[in-house]
């Protein structure tokens, strides 16, 4: 019997792994503050992952004829190291790139960054968290001087009078989290902003709150309008603004141009509702005697070319209401991936070293170099964000080799057809995974790894709390932990640094590397975690109790004040035309996680949600002559996908929705746009212009150009 946490999302539900009635290991929920004893289908069935039929248990090398053959670990690592050396000798260190993941443990994320900077010595490392958390991270750093998704425990939400939730469908993505909205729903204060009447939007029914079905990509405008009303109607927390913020005047001027009637014409949400929501938030705010209010954002609001500015606008609104830094109120971003928080703190980002240190800061380089025992000058400089990196792969001056860890880019990257072509053009692609994901199937080498219940480590959940992942079973013979793989490659590539393989040892090194950084883990130890302490970073010493709530004393800028930054909408990168008159938005279904590489292999989940679909409104369906029994094709200027139509009045008549977990013809990321936010590098997954058409019942439902790239 082992107590650990769920392998999937950032809620990290506590679970117990023990033999079930049939003797196989089974998961059941444990009491824990974030999941309060609840768990969704994904968690309940997670132990099935350990028994997945197509588990890879030996390194695979692609033959010249394209087939994978089993090779020994020594042969695989020898050959990879030799090819890396040869490429780097010929084309320089930056010819090898690394792509990490927000699902990796802190230990793996840390060691991967160290491996890239000290062994490969490439500047090209980034990770799939760029697709999830980067806009909120950039905005959090800009406003507060620190980026912790939720700077307060999730349980704090329970006491609020109002919660404004933008672009998050947590009822599907992390169902047990809905419990924390129980209080605000009882008080009628839940406001969900989403183009769809999602499961989360439906939580507002029956007087529990209000759903605002805005035009896709207009969250920023909506927030400017709400802030306008708060300032114009004198609802702001004037004392807080004077004492704890800078930049109000700029923000006030910038929202002067966004009066409610104008905002209504952009967002589709009428001015009466806007005023009502603004007043409701204000009434809930502490300065006006309310029990508290929260502004929360998710990917729907963040994955835009102005995503950083959208989060900034959300923070500005929260600051106007005097919420951040007050117990029972605040702004928070709802992290998606399991270790989306920790994964971005310890060196996978193109511009960061462990502890959320910036790679171009000389003192940060010096500190980390000292921990690693290398010269600061030997560390490479800043790389480029994920989309930029992926689009360079295999080009004349781009990287020719790539290591992929914990990511299934072929399904999850925007404009996935182009990304797939880039991957296929590499001289060397090495994918570490435990199943043959769509990306692994393109690789020259697949290195099989241990998975969640087979390893020790730590994860940092959506609220910045560090939790322990524990091994419950012995991994199959023939698979290795990523720590072992990196050490093995390091040894062959003449690493001058230590690459420990014991997670606890790696974590202790991470603690030293992060000491004094923004995300300071120095005082967090396995021993303290195993003793049951609830430790939130920063935790600078072993005596420190951790920091469940940030900003009580001040914000993390030098002057202790939050920075309000004036922002304005950039507009959709890919706007509607007569040929592409419909908005596309994407998201998750309850049964699947991310690219589906794991959950599509769990029979019970796959039975419940076996395929992609395209959700469209009855009015749009009628206009397009779609009856709901046929497949439809969704096409943008980048590509198409085909899936079953699902007619539902829960979506705007001008918008279609498709889940992003599916591959092949049903891959919606063939259609999405790779345009990125200039500040965060986050792609605009959450709105593009498409055409939708019925695929004839008799004709071929396949475009030849949609065939997966296969070498």
């Amino acid at each position, binding site marked *: 019997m082992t107590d650990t946490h769920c392998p999937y999302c950032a809620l990290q539900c506590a679970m117990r792994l023990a033999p079930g009635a049939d003797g196989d290991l089974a998961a059941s929920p444990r009491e824990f503050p974030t999941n309060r004893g609840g768990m969704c289908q994904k968690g309940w069935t997670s132990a099935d992952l350990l028994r997945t039929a197509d588990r890879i248990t030996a390194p695979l090398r692609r033959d010249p004829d394209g087939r994978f053959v089993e090779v020994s670990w020594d042969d695989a690592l020898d050959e990879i190291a030799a090819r890396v050396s040869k490429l780097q000798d010929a084309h320089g260190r930056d010819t090898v790139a690394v792509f990490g993941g927000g699902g990796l443990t802190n230990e793996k994320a840390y060691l991967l960054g160290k491996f890239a900077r000290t062994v490969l010595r490439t500047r090209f490392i980034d990770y799939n968290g760029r697709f999830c958390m980067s806009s909120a991270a950039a905005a959090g750093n800009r406003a507060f001087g620190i980026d912790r998704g939720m700077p307060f425990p999730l349980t704090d939400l329970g006491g609020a009078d109002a919660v404004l939730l933008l672009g998050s469908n947590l009822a599907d993505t992390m169902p047990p989290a809905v419990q924390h909205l129980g209080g605000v729903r009882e008080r009628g204060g839940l406001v969900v902003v989403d183009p769809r009447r999602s499961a989360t939007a439906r939580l507002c029914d029956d007087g529990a709150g209000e759903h605002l079905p805005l035009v896709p990509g207009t969250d920023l405008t909506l927030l400017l309008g709400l802030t306008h009303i708060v300032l*114009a109607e004198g609802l702001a927390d004037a004392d807080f603004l004077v004492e704890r913020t800078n930049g109000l005047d700029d923000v006030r001027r910038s929202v002067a141009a966004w009066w409610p009637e104008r905002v*209504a014409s952009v967002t589709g949400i009428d001015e009466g509702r806007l005023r009502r929501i603004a007043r409701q938030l204000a009434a809930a705010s502490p300065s006006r005697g309310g029990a508290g209010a929260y502004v929360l954002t998710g990917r729907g609001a963040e994955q835009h070319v102005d995503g950083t500015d959208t989060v900034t606008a959300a923070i500005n609104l929260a600051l106007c209401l005097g919420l951040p830094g007050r117990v029972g109120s605040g702004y928070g971003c709802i992290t998606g991936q399991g270790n989306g928080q920790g994964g971005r703190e310890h060196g996978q980002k193109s511009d960061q070293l462990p502890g959320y240190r910036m790679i171009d800061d000389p003192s940060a380089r010096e500190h980390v170099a000292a921990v690693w025992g290398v010269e600061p000058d030997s560390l490479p400089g800043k790389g480029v964000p994920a989309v930029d990196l992926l689009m360079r792969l295999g080009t004349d001056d781009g990287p020719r080799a790539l290591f992929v860890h914990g990511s299934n880019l072929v399904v999850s990257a925007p404009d996935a057809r182009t990304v797939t072509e880039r991957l296929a053009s590499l001289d060397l692609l090495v994918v570490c995974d435990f199943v043959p994901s769509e990306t692994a199937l393109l690789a020259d080498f697949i290195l099989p790894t241990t998975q969640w219940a087979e390893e020790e480590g730590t994860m940092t959940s959506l609220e910045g709390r560090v939790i322990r992942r524990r091994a419950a079973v012995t991994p199959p013979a023939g698979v290795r932990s990523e720590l072992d793989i990196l050490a093995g490659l390091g040894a062959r590539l003449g690493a001058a640094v230590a690459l420990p393989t014991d997670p606890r040892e790696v974590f202790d090194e991470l603690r030293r590397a992060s000491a004094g950084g923004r995300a300071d883990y120095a005082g967090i130890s396995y021993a303290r975690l195993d003793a049951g302490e609830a430790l939130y970073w920063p935790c600078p010493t072993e005596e420190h109790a951790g920091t469940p709530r940030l900003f009580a004393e001040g914000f993390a800028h030098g002057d202790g004040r939050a920075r309000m930054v004036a922002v304005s909408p950039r507009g959709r990168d890919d706007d509607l035309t007569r040929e592409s008159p419909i908005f596309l938005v994407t998201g998750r279904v309850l049964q699947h996680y991310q690219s589906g590489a794991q959950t599509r292999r769990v029979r019970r989940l796959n039975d419940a949600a076996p395929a992609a679909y395209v959700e469209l409104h009855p009015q749009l369906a009628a206009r397009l002559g779609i009856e709901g029994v046929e497949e439809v094709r969704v096409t943008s200027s980048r590509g198409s996908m085909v899936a079953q139509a699902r007619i539902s009045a829960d979506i705007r008549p001008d918008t279609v929705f498709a889940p992003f977990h599916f591959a092949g013809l049903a891959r919606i990321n063939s259609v999405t746009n790779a345009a990125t936010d200039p500040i965060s590098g986050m792609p605009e997954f959450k709105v593009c212009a498409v055409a939708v058409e019925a695929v004839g019942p008799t004709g071929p439902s396949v475009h030849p150009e949609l065939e997966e790239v296969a070498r």
Partner: protein
Amino acid sequence: MTRQPRRTRVVVVGAGMVGIRFAEEVARADREGRFEVLVLGEEAYEPYNRILLTELVAGRADLASLALARPDGVTVRLAARVQEIDREARTVQVDGEAIPYDHLVLATGAQARVLRVPGLDGDPGDPLPGGVFVLRSVDDARGITAAALNAKRAVVVGGGPLGVEAACGMRLRGVAVDVISFAGHLLDRDLDPEPGRLLAAAVGDLGVTFHGNAALAGVTHSDGHVDGVGLDDGRTLAADLVVLAAGAVPETALAAAAGLEVAHGIVVGDDLATTVDPAVFAIGDCAQTPSGVSGLVAPGWEQARALAQRLVHGEIGEPVPVVLAGAAMRLKAAGVSLVSMGRKASNADGARVLTMSDPYARRYVEVVLDGDELVGMTCLGAAELSSTLSVQFGRPGVVPLDPLQLLAPSAGQADAAAGSPTTMPGSTTVCRCNGVTKRDLVKAWEGGACSVDALATTTRATTGCGGCTSLVRGICDWLQTSDPDDGVSTRSARSTSGDGVSQVEVLDREPVVKGA
């Protein structure tokens, strides 16, 4: 290194919403920093959002919230009145200083029209009699607000958007208000007669009385303060506060003095350059484009953007036509919702028109369709619908096949209600988190799971977010009632299997669903 070329000097006369927007657009487009922009504003106030002046009158906004953003890299000089333009020397005169320009952009806006009737027959520029105001500046709005403190009856002259907003605003301050207009109905430029009449009824409900077909004949005063207005039909209305909102006149004096062509406004071509001097441009309310004078901010902003693109990117790109048609009118008046865009029934020009008129509720909705595109809408008293419709305006391909659905989007759509435990179909998902249907629960009951706890253990229903706990309890109660004997016997025959600890914990807490 090559010598830095001299930056192109752009001088903007007028720091209103269009002038400031133009400066902002230039600053944004000018990535290389080739332009130097100076904005000269006549008022001493920070540039502000003139559109919201009626919100000041209504007390729904404070002055500070009207200030506009100062664009980065742009110099704004306030209280800087331009006396003269020397087109020969390419300079403008401000307090004896000659300020040079390469491009001069006139964004001087408009003045309120003062009807020269008895009692208002002073010379232009003379102060208006006490208690009589126009509403064009912050000072005007402040004056009205102060006067409203002591006023009992106000008369608004003019039945356009400004007049209606001002009237409703003063009404919020407790002043009785009459609106007079020479037109037969309110907002005659934006509305056809029927919605216009319904609007009058709607503002009437708020306490604003409308007098149509009534021209202002004179203003009477006593002791230097207004005490009434006379109408051309001989009637008089008592008033201690009068607001003149009878339209605006483009501010063209500077342009005319500089020898530029002036008709109703400063005459410009599609390229927004004046007809006489290619270095001088006019945008916003002062400009008379080939499509006319706008008087609304949206076309002014469009002109600002177009001109900035032209100046910064030179010949690159097509000239942007200045479109005035279809500009949206959104009334900002507490208690009345009104939006009109594009074509209306009376100028539908063969397009398909659908109307819904509901005088009882002061509602009127009209949509105009050209093929699969919404090309016009009028929406009174239906705020939610108006915002839904306005985002579909001009977007072909997404309007419903049957445009009736535009008038009543949710009519006839049955909401997927959860239903009662008894009547809901077996296929209804009860627990979303774990994909448990009512049928699954009934099956589990029949298999011996005859309590909420046991159902939870067997099916996992309620063990995710807990939101379905009350529904499961309801189904459990229904099963108990419908088949109590069977329930009891099977329950005792079967013990709970597996690790039930966590389920008990889950079920001990308060149900999340409201009304449980």
